[in-house]
């Protein structure tokens, strides 16, 4: 097998990943134990301040809560909407490739910030949709923007997250559903199960792989994002992403790094989960 000799082609990639993934990880871990002015090591001193702040600061707790609440709700909605859509596409007679393109890739050629700004505009009391509707004699008020509950739940942010990340839920589920052997379903029907039973006993368990990936692919960016909460959150909501951004902008690399590591911990957990269900990473795109 001559092809096995090509393994050395990986070496540059391994080095590249070590420098760009491993090195920053080390820098971040070191930074959390320091009190420094950005990366200036000459004035840095050893300190546990960042760690103390992580467990005592009210803002961190609120930011974590807000991020979990909004990202969680967005993920659930994405799943409820995304699964049926993926199921419909997988079982349709259309050219699936085209539908998947329409559903996932084409919206991404529109800038995501601009799309969220359009959503913000749509949810304002005076929006272009209202204006056009007013011109034809319809009145429509949808003042969701600015509504803000003590729970940290912001409907506008959740709408933005769902419309931005829904494709990432549909795609992996579709990939798995399409690969299910149709003869399994026939066998189930032949053995007397009805459609509903077949779905819950055969189809759904077989699609768990895609569901896991989908949930992670929606939850992680929703949880850590900072542009969408900033555009749609009316500046009232502190998110973990906005907090990290503001820490780095204030040159507090120490606390910023620590918060990044918290996110990274969640990500490594998710990766372990995905590795368990999908070793070849085929549901990821």
């Amino acid at each position, binding site marked *: 097998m001559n092809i096995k000799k090509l393994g050395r082609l990986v070496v540059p990639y391994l080095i590249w990943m070590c420098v760009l993934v491993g090195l920053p990880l080390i820098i971040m871990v070191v930074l959390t134990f320091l009190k420094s002015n950005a990366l200036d090591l000459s004035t840095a001193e050893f300190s546990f301040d960042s760690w103390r702040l992580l467990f005592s600061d009210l*803002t961190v707790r*609120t930011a974590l809560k807000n991020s979990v609440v909004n990202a969680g709700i967005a993920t659930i909605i994405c799943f409820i909407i995304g699964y049926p859509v993926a199921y419909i596409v997988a079982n349709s007679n259309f050219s699936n490739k085209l539908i998947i393109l329409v559903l996932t890739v084409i919206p991404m050629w529109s800038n995501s910030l601009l799309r969220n700004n359009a959503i913000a505009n749509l949810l304002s009391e*005076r929006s272009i949709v209202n204006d056009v509707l007013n011109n034809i004699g319809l009145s429509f008020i949808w003042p969701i923007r600015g509504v803000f509950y003590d729970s940290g739940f912001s409907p506008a942010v959740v709408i933005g997250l769902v419309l931005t990340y829904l494709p990432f839920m549909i795609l992996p589920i579709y990939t798995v559903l399409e690969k299910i052997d149709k003869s399994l379903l026939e066998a189930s029907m032949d053995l007397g199960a009805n459609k509903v039973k077949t779905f819950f006993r055969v189809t759904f368990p077989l699609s768990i792989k895609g569901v896991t990936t989908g949930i992670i692919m929606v939850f992680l960016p929703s949880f850590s994002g900072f542009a969408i909460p900033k555009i749609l959150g*009316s*500046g*009232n909501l502190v998110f973990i992403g906005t907090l990290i951004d503001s820490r780095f902008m204030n*040159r*507090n690399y120490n606390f910023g790094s620590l918060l990044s590591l918290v996110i990274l911990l969640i990500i490594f957990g998710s990766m372990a989960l995905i590795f368990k269900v999908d070793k070849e990473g085929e549901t990821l795109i």
Partner: protein
Amino acid sequence: MKKIYLLLGVVLTSLALIACTSKPKLYVLNWGEYINEDLVEQFENEYGVKVVLSYADSSEAMEQKVKEGTTKFDIVIPSDYMIEKLWDEGYLQAIDLSKLSNFDHSAFVPGLNGIMSMMFQDNPEVTNAYTVSMPYFWGVFGLMYNRQLSGLEAYIEANQWGAVFEQEPANLFTRPLKVGMYDASRLTYSASLIYANDKGLVDDQTALNKFSTVYLQTSEQVLSQRSYTLWATDMLKKDVEAGNLDLAFVYVGDFFDTYLILTENAKTTEEATQLTSHIGIFVPDTTIAFYDGMVIPAASRNVDLAHTFINYFLDPEIAYENSGIVGYTTVLTETAEMIKNATKGDVIRSVMASDYPYDPSTIQDFTAIPLIAFSNADTDSVAAMINTVKSK
């Protein structure tokens, strides 16, 4: 397939050619919508250079960008208190006044000197504030409001800063007020302390320029008195104009910016009045004054060109063209005269200059106090306090 590669190659090379020019580059860090870009183009053509503009939405953001050092800016335009801080920390270099042919001490409007003289009081080495920064625009802060909500104008006049910081009495208006707050911690902190002084919560006229844990608590208390529909910077003026906010704490210049955009196509003053009848601006009795000045960071590599750029905008004619887009108050006496007398047939701007608190030095019935810089640790504490207010 070969054709596609060829096409790709052509596109790439042309893009690369457009992207890289061998002309000397001038890196400018500015506020958004704070320069007439036609003038920048004119400057580029006149001197055969390329100006690279970057934007920031607060003095603090400018400070970070200068300190990060990832871009070696040649010109930055922060506000007064930040200029002083950056100078004291050694991030700026002195402006060589002999290189500025348009510079003249007496060319600046009188009110500006009040702010300039407040700076560097504890730094005897700086004898002339103009060697640190060259004033660009100046102004005060005010409250921009929705004129169509009946009773709001009277309510703001009676309550001053209280209109923003207090929960309005129930049933005074047909619906609850939608209030916007400026999301730049230093400004929010100072405004809340002006209010606290007005109400007797603190007994100190200069509280807005002091940092202490007591004042921090007072500020937090004031900011917690009501909830805000929107915390933002530049977005506030847009939302007041659109009717999504009733009242917001903004730069007075922001109001005129909006005014200029709305009256862009107006031919007569009547038409202009009608187009802007839904928004108003009110300046409280005590408010914050500021000027934004052009400074040259120590890391600048194109110091001579930076001087040329500063000199260019000191030309009264150029400053006149610039103020037509920006809406903030000019710092040059000659330009101010040109606007007031509408020597260029610009009716709308002459109305603006006479009817509204456009020129802070002509209005006597309010006190405007410039800000003084806080240390890094204090700035961080104030920012953390604002986050706590939002987290409640």
